[in-house]
């Protein structure tokens, strides 16, 4: 009797811990409403910004979960979002075909991901090197394309009317939802996803369980490429023009978002798709709150520092929890 009570208490505690990121999301939402109101800004405008930025970050981060579950990471995803969007714009402008543009965006995004994964897994270059290199190369090339074709405006774009029919909440919500469901399905209900998570938990044991490490690394990067493709497309739907700073910070923000969402950066079996969803929106909320509160008063950049400190605190707490479970027995 006492035992079942104890077990119940324990389960409740675990549930509470799991719900913590959701609670944080709600608190941040309340905080945004409050600050916007106090400043006398328009709430509907801010909610629109948060929604649009949040959807893109959440989509890219959801795809990225596959990479992070391996205990690996990729900060070049922002640059490849920019790159695929830029190429997509170029393709549209020379063919006037929306389907072709969409295919190109996904093709380029997956291509970039494949390149990263081949460099990392087949040639055994450390991820940390390939991802930084990819980031620099992709954003440089994209910037080159944009300035070469954008002229004095500093940006290239497609006519707003092309994507206007899609620039609404239902379409974006459905896109986000469908992609999330696909990812949850692959991640939790297929052999591929289960093996990916196991690989993240213990690569040595995974190899000895017949899991081909390279193959699964490539699968993970392809899934991330899908997220990048969708993210790039949604970016174009929201703002039909691309500048060299578009999606620039997404690469780092994903990392923060995933941790905010309650997933350990070491990956493994505690990886969750919803971490990207919850964390993505939390991060965008926090970012906008900080922008309102700090940047309007003090100098620019402080909000970055505050969110970095926040990030380190979250990482520290989660990793502490993780370390205590590693006692040798």
């Amino acid at each position, binding site marked *: 009797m006492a*035992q*079942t009570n*104890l*077990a119940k208490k*324990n389960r409740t505690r675990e549930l509470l811990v799991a719900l913590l990121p959701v609670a944080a999301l709600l608190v941040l939402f309340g905080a945004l409403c409050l600050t916007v109101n106090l400043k006398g800004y328009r709430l509907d405008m801010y909610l629109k910004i948060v929604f649009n930025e949040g959807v893109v970050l959440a989509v890219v981060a959801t795809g990225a979960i596959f990479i992070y579950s391996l205990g690996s990471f990729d900060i070049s995803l922002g640059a490849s979002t920019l790159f695929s969007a830029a190429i997509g714009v170029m393709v549209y402008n020379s063919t006037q075909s929306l389907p072709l543009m969409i295919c190109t965006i996904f093709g380029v995004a997956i291509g970039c991901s494949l390149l990263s994964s081949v460099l990392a897994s087949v040639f055994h270059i450390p991820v940390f090197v390939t991802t930084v290199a990819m980031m620099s190369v992709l954003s440089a090339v994209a910037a080159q394309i944009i300035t070469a074709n954008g002229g004095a405006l500093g940006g290239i774009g497609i006519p707003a009317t092309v994507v206007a029919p899609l620039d609404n909440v239902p379409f974006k919500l459905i896109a986000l939802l469908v992609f999330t469901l696909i990812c949850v399905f692959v991640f939790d*209900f*297929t*052999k*591929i996803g*289960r*093996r990916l*998570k*196991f690989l993240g*938990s*213990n690569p*040595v*044991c*995974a*190899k*000895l*369980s*017949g*899991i*081909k490490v390279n193959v699964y690394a490539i699968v993970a990067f392809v899934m991330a490429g899908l997220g990048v493709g969708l993210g790039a497309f949604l970016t174009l739907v929201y703002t039909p023009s691309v500048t060299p700073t578009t999606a620039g910070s997404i690469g780092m923000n994903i990392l923060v978002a995933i941790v905010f969402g309650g997933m350990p950066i070491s990956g*493994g*079996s*505690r990886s969750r798709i919803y971490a990207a969803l919850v964390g993505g929106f939390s991060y965008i909320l926090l970012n906008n709150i900080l922008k309102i509160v700090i940047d309007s008063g003090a100098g620019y950049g402080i909000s970055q520092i505050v969110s970095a400190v926040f990030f380190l605190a979250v990482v520290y707490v989660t990793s502490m929890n*993780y370390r205590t*479970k*590693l*006692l*040798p*027995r």
Partner: protein
Amino acid sequence: MEPILTMKHIRKTFSSTVALGDVSLELWPGEVRGLIGENGSGKSTISSIAAGMQKPDSGEMIFQGQPWAPKSMIDALHRGIGMIVQESGTISGVTVAENIFLAELDQFKRFGVIDRRAMNRKADEALAGIGVKDVQGSTPLAALDFQARKLVEIAKVVMKQPQILVVDETTTALSQTGRDILYDVIKRFRSEGRAVLFISHDLEEIMDVCDTLTVLRDGARIRDFKKEEFEPDAIRTSMIGRELQGDYYRSDFTPSRLEEIALKARHLQSGGALKDVSIDFHKGEIVGIGGLSHCGMHSLGKVLFGAEKPESGSVTTADGTKITNETVAMKHGIGYVAKDRDVESLALNTSIRDNIAIAGMERYALGNFLVTNAKEKPYVDRQIESLSIKCAGRDQLVSQLSGGNKQKVVFGKWIGRGSEILILDCPTRGVDIGVKKAMYELMTSLKKEGKAIIMISEELPELMGMADRLIIMKDGVVMKEFPRSESLSDAEIIKYMI
């Protein structure tokens, strides 16, 4: 005379699991006390509480007349209680010397730089102090095998001259040479009036090494035995709470096997580990492979599974397929229980379910792709039940299981998927006699089903007791093959090992 350590009414729970109900224990000067009990009975828990690895929920400890509440294992070691843990207690990224002096690198600092020569020299001394000569302080730990790592750990603890040495289920990972080193250390502790708490599942060993014996069952102290009361059947009965038939090895002494060959090794060559090894493994046959720790048998296991590439030579299955990697091996029904359980056989921070399912998914995934709860849960539960894994449920993390129960999870992982060829490296390491018996029975019935079993082991009695054919290796060479026979003797076999 006062006890060195008194533990009174120790209680320890992990959420719903009561690991220790109310256990009291004393250790006297010059005493070597054995601790025995089934898997999950609380042996590691009580001893790791004494050694500062975890704290009791309640209870009192007195060490050398003072209240005892160490902050950590390192703290405990410095103040007089050292422990050799059940799994690897060393770190593989650094050298032997750094492992030994991990917590006290400062003492070798000259002007802010660590004097490696001095540290390596001290490490060599510590190793020589327990009689280990072939391991150097400057060697990277990763270059050592499991046994050598254990010896490094022993040297590290003994060097601190603790009053109490706790040895948790270490000997089954050691070959005879390693064991002798440890036994010498234990004797020295006894003669110097210090004390040892010795945990083992090997009844003969524990009766040999210990002066007194405490039996734990389900987190409770059941009974103490003095040396003159030692009697295997009585100890076994008090361990499991009912009688267990005396012998658990195979009762027949005629070797048998099917004509058909399951796996063929040809001219395997691999550095110093394997030298021109050729063996046929038949269906329905248990092949035992024995030798000293360095004899190459552990490498052979890896090579047979495709996990290690030989420099030359080949491993082929009955249909002529070459085994070149683990994936191919598994496709052809080969399973491999590795020796280094916590690193190679399990993902610790993952559930029992994931660990068992990872190798067996093909069996129930729809289209070899879709994994559903409806299929997976019963599959996992079947393994938990048939191996009677003691756990809070299939979703419990493997890291929370006792050593023997972890081993059962590994068994479930490979047996559940219906492996046709099983390579077992030290399969009964750390499992209690009841489970051992069950595992041996399982091996016998798998043999009857026509499966090929390759059992690599440091335990000669187990090899002699189970194998149809016993292969003895030395320095990477197959020295001798013995067919199963009643007249086989230890002495004759050991001749070919050393």
